[in-house]
């Protein structure tokens, strides 16, 4: 039910592509130790998300790494970087405390 992967869905494809290219240049989460405290300058320029990308990739590697090859983990890292880029854009959207998520909890037991 989802064709978000088609190229003309989403307004920030070019920026996103630039981000992915930068993410590809970042060492894999396996090198987290070396990267810790010194996030790659390229991704920092792209939104300061390098450290978060590495940390979340490490989280996924620790949880699911047994299912993922190095190549797939690199793809996961690019996906995470893209997701964080999107999240940062959404975080800039002005909301008030009264803006509730678009779902409601029901106490009814069905």
């Amino acid at each position, binding site marked *: 039910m989802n064709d978000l992967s088609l190229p003309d869905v989403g307004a920030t494809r070019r920026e996103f592509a630039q981000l992915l290219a930068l993410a590809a240049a970042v060492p894999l989460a396996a090198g987290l130790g070396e990267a810790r405290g010194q996030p790659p300058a390229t991704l920092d320029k792209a939104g300061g998300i390098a450290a978060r990308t590495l940390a979340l*990739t490490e989280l996924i590697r620790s949880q699911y790494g047994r*299912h993922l090859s190095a190549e797939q983990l690199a793809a*996961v890292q690019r996906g995470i970087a893209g997701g964080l880029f999107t999240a940062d854009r959404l975080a800039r959207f002005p909301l008030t405390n009264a803006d509730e998520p678009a779902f409601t909890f*029901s106490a009814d037991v069905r």
Partner: protein
Amino acid sequence: MLMPRDITEETLYAPVRELGALVREKQVSPLAVTEAYLARLEKWGPKLGAVVTVTRDLALKEARTAEREIASGHYRGPLHGIPYGAKDLLATRDIPTTWGAEPYRKQVFDYDATAVKKLRAAGAVLVAKLAMVELAGAFGYNNADASFTGPGRSPWNTGYWSGGSSSGPGAAVAAALVPFAIGSETSGSIITPAAYCGVSGLRPTYGRVSRHGAMALSWTLDKLGPMCRTADDCGLVLAALAGPDPLDPSAVAEPFAYPDREPPAVPPAGAKKLKVGVVRGATDRAQPEVAKNFAESLKVLRQFAEVVEDVPLPDLPFGEVVGTIVKAEGASAFRDLLESGKAAQLRAVADRSGGYAAAAVLAVDYLQAMRIRGPMKRAMDELYAKYDALVAPSRGTVAYPIDEDFDRAWPGFGGGPPVIPAGNAVGQPALSVPNGFGPKGLPTGVQFTGRVWGEERLVQLAHAYQLATGWHTKRPTLA
């Protein structure tokens, strides 16, 4: 006295309304027409990558029941005795429901989806479970070869994709393997294959049709809807599907009425002209043929509607919101698949790892996206309250080649205003109908988008458009 007709190709390409009238008048036997569609499904379905399971035994049983009932004077309505196909994410008792994905190839449920039950109650005959992009595109596929049944192929040119994720429903309707089908959309999965296959596809308002028994990708975005020969048929089928369901709390009792008689071509004399807005930038990045066909469509619309040019969509992050929600809800919906490692069995390379990246979406980011939907809904409703519909090309390009990654298929084209994610983010309906042809003999489409619960108006407009044009009557040459 009416005489029974032979089942010809003309019969099989007839709209549901026309076919239904022939069945009602006993000129066409439900059993004979079912057998004819079964033969086409078995002959062309595999070549088009459009079919997962032909439900021959069930179909013949349901067709015999319909025949018996109609003969005894118990006529259920315009879908009685009419065959149809269901995207293979709708649960069907004792028949495999594969979700298009290898890990679920042997999955069998012991119940029917509500949509299947409702169509059975209307007398329709299930002839096939139709192919789809694996898991409805949950994990970011980037080419047409993304289903265990292989790529869905357009009947207009089998070197090109039928669109996704409702690839089978689009191709099967276009090739007259079925007179109508049920597809689903989270963001684009009815509108895209409708455009790429040259059929009419209606994405209903979120909550119009029960999702019970449908594979969940995104609980707050998934919709089921009809894919048919005509907009008028979409109205008929939606009338059978719509309504509340105790098994799906999101399905509500918002009335949807559709006339048993074909609606008029234009608003009655003296009635106010319908007001149609053209989305700003709608053709800015479209292929020249798409832009030309859209301009011709506007000329037709001006015959019976007031057309207002250059209407901007609200400047809001629709794509980002939908993308974040699909990732978070999809990773949750398929968490067992990710945990098991069986995502490695998925067909598309991107799908094998995409779910793991989705699993890293933070809860606060998901909730941020869900909160933004509130102001988004208000902004979109404020805009759409001024119009009966906004129109844009359904897609900026014709279908992609089977053997190319999507982002390399039509360089420089595609994109433009985010009409599809905007409508899906806020749950609004849309209806795509064919409006011409572009490169490689492939069809193009125009989409009518409307206010929440405004499907009737969209069908009315698209029906009037189709009465003034003949694109929906074109047939592909199958070879």
